[in-house]
């Protein structure tokens, strides 16, 4: 067990003994990692900020159930993933999905064949924007599973645990996400 983990566990014992402010050290220690994954899953800063707060609030309420042999960073990370998933599910329920075809505007993209230059850089920007909107076309579960696998480099087992689903279901969610995103990309590349 590393020094940071020992400090985390000491802080948790202090919190459970009634020292609420000890939780502040845990929040300060892990906020940025939680914000990063929250932003990658939700795709926007405001939602990520909300997720960070939700995650630490939820973590505080569940702190009595935290097992001393666990790593607090991993534990709060999983809570943050669940909070982010809940948030994008709620958001998708409230707003209509983005119309990918309308947003992409592939006709406006100019694609030079091979020569690098300003146009290629522009295409890169367009692809980035396109990918972001394509990510919104995924289901919340697919988006979260893909983000954790592709961007956070989590294993299928870690994804399954964080999302509280079977490993095979996590694997299928990642496959479906990749297939959908590739179909969108293919559409963009054909048109350009």
């Amino acid at each position: 067990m590393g020094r940071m983990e020992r400090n985390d566990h000491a802080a948790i014992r202090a919190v459970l003994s009634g020292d609420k402010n000890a939780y502040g050290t845990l929040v300060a220690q892990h906020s940025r990692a939680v914000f990063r994954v929250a932003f990658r899953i939700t795709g926007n800063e405001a939602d990520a900020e909300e997720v960070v707060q939700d995650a630490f609030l939820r973590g505080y309420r569940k702190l009595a159930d935290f097992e001393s042999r666990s790593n607090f960073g991993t534990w709060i990370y999983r809570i943050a993933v669940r909070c982010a998933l809940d948030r994008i599910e709620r958001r998708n329920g409230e707003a209509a999905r983005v119309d990918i075809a309308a947003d992409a505007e592939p006709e406006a993209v100019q694609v030079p064949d091979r020569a690098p230059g300003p146009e290629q850089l522009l295409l890169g920007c367009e692809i980035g924007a396109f990918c972001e909107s394509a990510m919104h076309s995924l289901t919340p579960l697919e988006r979260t599973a893909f983000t954790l696998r592709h961007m956070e480099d989590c294993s299928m087992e870690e994804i399954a645990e964080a999302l509280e689903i079977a490993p095979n279901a996590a694997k299928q969610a990642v496959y479906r996400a990749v297939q959908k995103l590739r179909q969108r990309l293919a559409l963009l590349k054909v048109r350009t």
Partner: protein
Amino acid sequence: MNHLSEEQLIELYYKKDNPEAARHLDACSACARAYQALQADLADLKPADTPARDENYGVQVWNSIADRLPAYTREKRPWFRRPLWIGLSAASACVLLVAAFYAGRVWEHEQQPHNLALTVPAAPRPPRVVVVVLSDHLERSERLLVQLKHVNANDAELASPLRDEARSLLVANRKCRQEAEQSGDPALTKALDRLNTLLTTLANQPGGLNAGAIAQLQEQMDKDGLLFEVRVLRSRIPDRQTSANSPLKGGIA
């Protein structure tokens, strides 16, 4: 080998530890092209840059949530749910289990000689049964012999119950003789033999009990001293009964 599916290619991209699929890519140009296309697509799907957060970000988050957090109380868990008590309870249960096991072993071991001791005197039980039955049998036999000795030989009506009683005593006499022989008591065996002869004659007198037959039986009884012998044997019975711890009741007679 068949071409790799898209799922297999995706799995290979993320896991990279499938040597069989990797060998297939070396040999199959179609799959190799498909894998290159997948790599290019996934490379395009880069994560967007995460907005930077400064060193004080954690403090800001804490300040935004601190007011919403109630402090934990020290006695949040009941005493019986604390780890120390749970551990002690489990340890006590184990100790009790082991103690019960060894107590059972010791008790069983100590019971072993007692059981043997109880089985040893169990052997003389049949003689005890014999004693009880014999006492009853000899009493009834003595009564019969006394009646036979004093019966009026000319009164056939009085002789008839004697014959019935003799028949009843015959069965008991045979069993008592058998037990006496097995227990190694020659005097008793011999006496019961003579009694058996008399009872058989009395019970199965051809043509019924007439005056002549009764007189003959009385003469034989006197000659053998059978009544005296039965009384002597009866007098020995109390000694035998007192030596028995718990004389059994009931039995053959």
